């Protein structure tokens, strides 16, 4: 584990300890299952956004992709009566396709990732609301696609299904990012795209690939989230999810300058955020303070990292962290 990962782990353990002491309910099986389900759900798309951040880019579109694909999934199953397998494949293909479009606009037309995905955020939200005629969609009695619903609400030996899926995806992503040729190219592009290009790395392919992964993982979470909430209101479904993902990646050690980050860090970052939300819930802090607590804790973490890191590593490197 890197220094950064150990730091996040210590912070996560400390936070869990604090919450557990303050509210014994935290360690109850139901609560842990609940937190695990959320960590799994949010972790999946956060991994994708984190990979994009390692290229030095950003993906702001995941929340709106969740809304658009959630609406479409409901319509495919309930209104158009598509077989569940076909609908699942279609949703994931759509997510990958949107990611590919982002990637092509960024690598071929040299548009800035922030702009491309910000437009995605606006476009897909609008499209979701228009397609649904601004009405909330659901899955009714859910006959014929019980197994799809189980992806969100089921569990394996007590472990919530979304957490299991996230773990599988995290292991695959870890292999891809930290053990494969593509992953090495990913970091090289993130650190110094020009030098990577001079070394024969297909830099456009690597960057575009990162957006495809982000779109695909957003689609996988879209399916889970749709069944988790069971009602998809197109105007608010998935709101701010891109920011949860960016926060998780940054808390987990990704640098917005690119070239730094790890899958394990992103997963722990997601967990940290969800435990924080759980803390707000359990300690009867007004839920309106949800975001404020998260913002304050991330800020304190960033300041601590900068100030302490400054002492440990000297001024030159400290400016590069977080």
């Amino acid at each position, binding site marked *: 584990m890197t220094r950064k990962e150990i730091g996040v782990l210590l912070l996560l353990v400390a936070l869990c300890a604090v919450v557990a002491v303050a509210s014994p309910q935290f360690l109850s099986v139901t609560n842990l299952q609940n937190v695990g389900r959320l960590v799994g759900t949010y972790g999946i798309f956060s991994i994708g956004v984190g990979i994009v951040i390692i290229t030095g880019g950003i993906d702001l579109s995941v929340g709106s992709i969740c809304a658009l694909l959630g609406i479409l999934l409901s319509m495919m199953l309930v209104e158009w009566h598509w077989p569940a397998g076909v609908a699942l494949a279609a949703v994931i293909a759509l997510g990958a396709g949107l990611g590919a479009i982002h990637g092509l606009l960024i690598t071929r037309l040299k548009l800035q990732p922030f702009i491309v995905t910000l437009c995605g955020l606006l476009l897909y939200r609008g499209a979701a609301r228009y397609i649904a005629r601004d009405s909330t969609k659901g899955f009714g009695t859910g006959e014929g696609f019980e197994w799809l619903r189980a992806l969100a609400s089921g569990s394996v030996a007590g472990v919530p299904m979304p957490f299991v899926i996230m773990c599988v995806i995290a292991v695959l992503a870890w*292999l891809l990012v930290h*053990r*494969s*040729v*593509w992953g*090495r*190219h990913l*970091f*090289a592009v993130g*650190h*110094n795209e*020009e*030098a*990577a*290009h*001079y*070394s*024969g*790395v*297909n830099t456009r392919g690597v960057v575009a690939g990162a957006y495809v992964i982000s779109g695909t993982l957003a689609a996988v979470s879209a399916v889970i989230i749709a069944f988790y909430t069971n009602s998809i209101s197109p105007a608010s479904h998935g709101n701010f999810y891109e920011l949860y993902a960016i926060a998780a990646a940054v808390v987990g050690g990704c640098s917005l300058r690119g*070239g730094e980050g790890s899958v394990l860090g992103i997963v722990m970052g997601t967990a940290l955020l969800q435990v924080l939300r759980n803390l707000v819930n359990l300690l009867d802090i007004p839920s309106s303070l949800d975001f404020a607590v998260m913002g304050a804790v991330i800020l304190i973490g960033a300041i601590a990292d900068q100030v302490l890191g400054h002492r440990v590593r000297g001024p030159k490197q400290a400016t590069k962290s977080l």
Partner: protein
Amino acid sequence: MAAISKRFPGVVALDSVDFDVSAGEIVALVGENGAGKSTLMKILAGIHRADSGEIRITGEPVTMHAPADAARLGIGVIHQELEVIETLDIAGNVFLGREPRRAGPLRLLDRRRMEADTERQLARIGMRLSPRTSLRLLSTAERQLVSIARALSMNARLLVLDEPTSSLGAKDAEKLFELLRELVRLKPDTMGATAIVYISHRLKEIEMLADRAVVLRDGRNAGTLPREAITHDRLVELMVGRAIAATAPPGAQAAGPAVLQIDKLRTGRYPDAEVSLTLHAGEVLGVAGLTGSGRSEVAEAICGVGTRMAGRMMLNGQPLAINSPNEAIQRGVCLVPEDRRRHGVVAAMTVRENVTLPALASYARFGLIDRASEETAVSHITREVTVKAASMESPVATLSGGNQQKVALGKWLALRPRVMVFDEPTQGVDVGAKAEIHRLIRRLADAGTAVMLISSDIDEILAHSDRVAVMHDGRITGILARAECSPESIMQLAVA
């Protein structure tokens, strides 16, 4: 400026150099790359401080700590790479950093004063453009005039122009000369006439323009020529007139078959100049020329990095189409680029990760890297190129310049390159590492690789090339066999 000395770590850039310029005079400052011209002018511009020596302006000794001090003292420097801001208009550029404010609590910009003064300066240099014209719309020549207007509006009494014609066409250059002659003749204010220091590699311009030429060589005064004595040959003589250090003769051997044939190559920077060259197996082809003569552009075009406008290439008799570095590398054409930290290495990554970056797939199965075989390859290569690092896991950024360069070179070895292009391989490299890099270059050639060695260091070219091509303004002005090479013969072609 009297007895100016400046040392940088490891080199004496200036050794007790004297330089003076009077009002109403154009003095040319001439010398090879590395002769100390830029350092001298940076001291004059307040960017560097001299270790010893004195600067006097109209007899008064002055000290400068920052470029702003130089500007205050009436010294205006127009750098080769123009420092203008494209998104601002002419007035905004002329007044950048010293914008006049209006009275009142808000201290708003006084646009009217800016524009009025800019208009006056533009009129002085004969430029008929509105002060509100955006810099983006201006040609390089016009941008240069804006830089001059900026210096004049700061009451510059001494203008320093560094290679002002390097990106100008013949017509624009002629116009610039007229303006410069005009400026030294006119008395701009009560302060006296303008003086101009003109730095250029184009000796013809200096013959035409300069009232006096000061030649620097290896950080020392090499001589001063009065107007009537300035001739091309005299200048070259002063520039290179030195004993060449005894050099190791290259492994003299017959060149092998042609490996890479370049036919009528044109690059984006010099679209009108054609370059044809042949690289042979086992031969080091030196490419000499002054900075900006188009050598790097040719190197980059061969290796798929830069833009190749036209031309054909043949590799071992087969047509070669290269549109990206990846395609070049696949065919065994590799580049050790000039800008090591930007292009040569990924400085934040480890020695191991850098060395295996181009050929990573050969250490992988099913796309997953086999760490053991990667490490074997790395230890093999780092031993071959003698990289000194704490470990393979040290970030390249922590290595010395020489060791970084060995990494930038070593990463290609596993690919067994057929053509290796080195662009200024020993720039910023200490003496020991330099010798090792030279040895590696020779060893590559001995192993049958066709090597191209681009260098601004004539000694390096002479010592390590089997044949020398000299470039000037994007063209090859001559190809010299080993026996014909001398500092004079190369410099004659380089300043053509």
